[in-house]
């Protein structure tokens, strides 16, 4: 069997100090295999978002070890983590987090701008990513001119434009109605299968979790159980 792309061992995250300190994560052990589609579930405050932030190198653990492709992440500097994010990770947030007054195309281009790609390449890659999420014709619209579902698809295009290995989605459907949610999940499912991107998604909606291959349940800062989803949704739909 292949090595895991991500291995968390004994991850602890404590906020604050002294008697008011709050332990959000109490020792997480988790292996994530490349190409998996994982839904992280759990009640509010169970530590699922904190784990996602640590996985995405947006935050650092208080204790424990985080191996990404066999390399330790928790010892890296801020800038090294930024470069790691730039190269291997794509992010999708519940609140979309697009730059306002900035066209869809320029939002999608932004990670490539920081990577230093030449203008023509940037444009082509961003248009290709917008095409993948079905918004090619909307490239010159700003977030204010797009619906919530469209904004989230722009955010997904921005996340995949760098061809990341891991896509982290924190409640990607939290702000959308059920029809748009299914579209977004279908999109994530297709990206996982066709582009081989490992997808990690936090959700508290069981319907959305049905698209994942593996379900990780969190409770009180610990992994409660991991279960495989024998019949993930979205596989049939994508062929149509």
């Amino acid at each position: 069997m292949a090595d895991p792309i991500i291995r968390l061992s004994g991850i602890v995250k404590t906020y604050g100090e002294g008697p008011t300190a709050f332990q959000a994560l109490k020792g997480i052990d988790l292996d994530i295999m490349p190409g998996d589609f994982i839904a992280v579930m759990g009640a509010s405050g169970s530590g699922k978002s904190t784990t996602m932030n640590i996985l995405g190198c947006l935050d650092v653990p208080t204790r424990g070890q985080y191996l990404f492709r066999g390399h330790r992440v928790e010892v890296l500097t801020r800038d090294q983590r930024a470069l790691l994010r730039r190269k291997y990770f794509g992010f999708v947030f519940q609140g979309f987090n697009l730059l306002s007054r900035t066209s869809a195309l320029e939002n999608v281009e932004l990670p490539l701008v920081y990577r230093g790609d030449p203008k023509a390449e940037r444009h082509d890659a961003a248009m290709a990513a917008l095409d993948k999420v079905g918004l090619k014709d909307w490239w010159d619209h700003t977030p204010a001119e797009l619906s919530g579902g469209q904004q989230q698809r722009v955010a997904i295009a921005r996340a995949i434009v760098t061809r990341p290995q891991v896509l982290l989605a924190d409640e990607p459907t939290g702000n959308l109605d059920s029809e748009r949610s299914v579209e977004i999940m279908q999109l994530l499912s297709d990206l996982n299968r066709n582009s081989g991107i490992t997808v990690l998604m936090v959700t508290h909606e069981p319907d959305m979790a049905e698209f994942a291959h593996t379900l990780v349940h969190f409770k009180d800062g610990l992994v409660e159980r991991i279960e495989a989803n024998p019949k993930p949704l979205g596989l049939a739909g994508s062929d149509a």
Partner: protein
Amino acid sequence: MIGTTFFLALRSIRRHVLRSFLTVLGIVIGVAAVVTMVTLGNATTAAVQSQISALGTNILQIRPGQGFGRGGGGPRPPDFEMDDLEAIAQQIAGVTAVAPQAQTSGTAIYEGANWSTTVNGTTDAYFTVQPWPLAEGRTFTPAEEQAGKSVCIIGNTIRQNLYRGGGAVGTRFRIKGVSCDVIGVLSTRGQAGFGGDQDDIVIMPVKAVQRRFTGNQNVSVMLVGVDQNYANEQVQASITDLLRERRKITGGKDDDFNIFDTKQISETLTGTTTLLTRIVATVAAISLLVGGIGIMNIMLVSVTERTREIGIRLAIGAVAREVLLQFLVEAIVLSCLGGLAGLVIAQLAIAVLSPLMQVSWMFDAQINVIAFAISAIIGVVFGYFPARRAASLNPIDALRHE
């Protein structure tokens, strides 16, 4: 990385026109106010100084009476005599020339036009004591002075009103029933620093004025030119002693004449205008400070607003340094644009206001540089430091910022 940053910074400025405009506005107003006020203040000082120097800085004016503010009761002290002039010119060291002034006023008439003016009887020494070049014509000859001939040199105001600006030399006009040949026209001096039109004057030989108008040998004012190598105070003291003796003032009695030192006036006036310039500069500096606080506010507010943007940029892989540099470039570009706009507006304001204030246009490089530098520093400092705080946040905290 630099190219990328510039690209992003300029795009951000273009995209937030109102925010950028408000940021720039504070700098524009601050710079324009400081540069305009200080430049006009300096121009006014320069104008006053040039008027004073045209007046002549080394002149003692001697008049009968105890000077301003005193006097009052008692008989009017006698005027001076021509002998007094001779005595001062010959006995006091450091005196270059002494010019008499015997004054009268009257209406000048020429071909139906008439103009009420002052006639000043004097000698050629008048033009030695205080430099006042002629626009055309000539001054008195010794023969004309000696004979008290009815010849006159007119100021520009007379030419404007009596001759409608046309040729005056060689003509003859009448004043107080006396006809007078115009032999010269004085160059324009303009308004005096302390009121009155200096060009509204007719100058005639002193003997002509005495004989034809005043009817006596008196001289109401003496103008004494002082050699630059002598101290005015020393010459003034010598003249005082001489005049007390000649006017038979003894013991503890007060002088019945007063000596007015134009150098003192010029120093006082220069001091006053310098003080005014300082006050104006202080007001301007305060407006620059207020402008600076405006910039600071806009920058602080916009960085707070933009914390989420900073979080997004960090999350998608920007290094904190890149985000910071972008904000720094934005601040520099905006501050410099604002500074330049302020300088341009200041030059326009100076060009418009200078003629209205009757001062000559002037460009003060120093104040331009100082105002620009201060506003640029304010813009950059307040654009940079809040951004540094935001960029040092954990990306996730910055993203959650509302």
